[in-house]
């Protein structure tokens, strides 16, 4: 297998060809997203990692995944919210600037999914907060997540 300049050139051309087209949003500027895992199979967190990859036009469509809650507008929660991770959820929420919103990504974050509330798990945002929107699925695909984010932005969710 060639590993020289031709490989790079062809791969670059493929990447250009595959580049996903940005989706125009009806309203608003850049929305910064912070993803927080709270205890699960990690399936939804892996889909968020894929959302931040090259198959979804996330940044071109006005979203940006950021590394800390201090810079985020929306909190994307994955996982069933274990008791041990609950303080991280609270801290992340409190660290976000005003105008923040919370989105439950996947069944776990909504109601615990397959993990019921017990000594270790609180059982999703449903049990602990009213201030959130949901993206269903177990797991939702990166495209499902992206389309739901665009729809939420278009309806002025905040």
């Amino acid at each position: 297998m060639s590993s020289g300049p031709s490989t790079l050139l062809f791969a670059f051309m493929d990447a250009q060809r595959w580049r996903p087209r940005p989706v125009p949003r009806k309203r608003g500027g850049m929305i910064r997203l912070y993803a927080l895992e709270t205890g699960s199979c990690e399936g939804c967190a892996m889909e968020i990692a894929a959302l931040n990859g090259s198959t979804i036009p996330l940044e071109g469509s006005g979203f940006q995944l950021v590394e800390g809650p201090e810079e985020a507008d929306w909190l994307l929660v994955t996982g069933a919210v274990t008791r041990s991770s609950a303080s991280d959820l609270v801290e992340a929420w409190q660290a976000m600037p005003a105008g923040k919103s919370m989105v439950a990504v996947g069944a776990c974050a909504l109601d615990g999914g397959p993990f019921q509330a017990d000594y270790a798990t609180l059982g999703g945002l449903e049990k602990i907060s009213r201030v959130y929107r949901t993206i269903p699925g177990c797991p939702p695909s990166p495209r499902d997540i992206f389309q739901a984010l665009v729809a939420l932005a278009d309806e002025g969710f905040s």
Partner: protein
Amino acid sequence: MTVMTAVLQHSERVGLFHYRIETDLWRALLEMVDRTVTFIALWVDEDEATLLLLYDESPILLSTAVEKRRYYAPSLRFPAAQWHERLARDLWGVEALSARDDRALLDDGCWPLTWPLAREPIPVQGERTSPDHRPGMVPSRTALPGLLGVRYEVVNGRVEQLDVQIAPGHRGVLSQLKGRTVAEALKIISRVNAAGFVAHPLAFTRAVEQAQAQLPTPRERDTRLILLEIERMSVHMFDLAQSARAAGAELLATYSDHMREALAQTCEEHGASRRLTDMVRPLDEGGCAISEIVPLAQAVITVVSVSLPRLIGLHHVYASRLEGLAVLPTEMAWAYGIGGVAGRASGRYVDRRALDIGMRLDALRSSGRHEGCALARNRQRLAEIGDSITLMERILASIGLDDEAQAYPVTDEGVGVAESARGDIWYWVTLQQGKIQKIHIRDPALPLLTVLGDILNGHKPEEIGAALLSLGISTAGVAL
């Protein structure tokens, strides 16, 4: 005569592969070296401590009584047992005497109960323990998708005394499985770890089938083998993309992303779920939830074969960026029984697929590497994707080929194993009237997490994220 032969002669046989020994013999076993024995897992509850060992490549269970909540620590002899001992202590309140490490692992003071799986858990009163304020990354902020935290000292710009934290990922899976029917349990087990949406339920299903004296038909056996290979390719592509992106090899990451997405779409177009969730089902419910495995396998072979050569070429271009990162030494891989890509890239070429009934052995060609670094792991991943294609082609050429498998008698106890993308997953199950009486899980991340500090000490703090991603670590199957 080996030590193990002597031990088995003085034991009481309580199951097909299950032996019970007195405490004295247990201690003697832990003091002697027998190279015919490999440690896989240690599971302890309030009644007994049970070792899962490989003895001449066959699994055996060796139990001894837990007395006054104590037993002698197998970590004396098998260093990989130390995390098992810590997990058992937190969940059942049983103490491993002379343990190498007896710090809490799951119980970080947030639960309302101490020893939650004990017959009589103790309600917690008072404040939670204070958090570790050393530098590092809290579990929610490492580069990994899951909850793995690291704390360390920084000396001369290098990481030292690195500790691993997994407590926030514990969700009480074992307690939720107890007393469930097999079908109910499978729903939870199908979401134990996203890197094993096929492999975890398959290992569980194999354990249940052994307990109930069931055998899959050759066609069902081959369907499972194909699903396992598709999952292996998908997880390898995920790990390739993540480690490439962390190393600044964006084009390689882009290629891996697109191949993985093409794989997911192919699955969806051929009647499977994108990530093969809920495809493995018990034989009583008709087996795997896909009616036509052949067109799916053919389409996957086409999709991956077209792009794999360019992915390999791109990997060559970026190879130097990963060289020497996060080295797992060969001796450590053997001493701790580290499997999967991490073990095989470090000179421990052990692949449980070789013992699967119906396996087309000539397809498992990649012989492993020995450098043990991030580069070697990615080379191994690429080689294994190629092997998966070959294996699926071989299976398609003789799908449903008869085998010589014979069912064991019904014992209501079974051990099942499946070689996932990240290593060998083991389940030990006992049933009572069709419901789960006891269940234990051993995910391949467990031995790797045990030595993570040794692998990462000496790196610069800014290298830790890329190092973790290159190892392909997930804590979901360990924290449970």
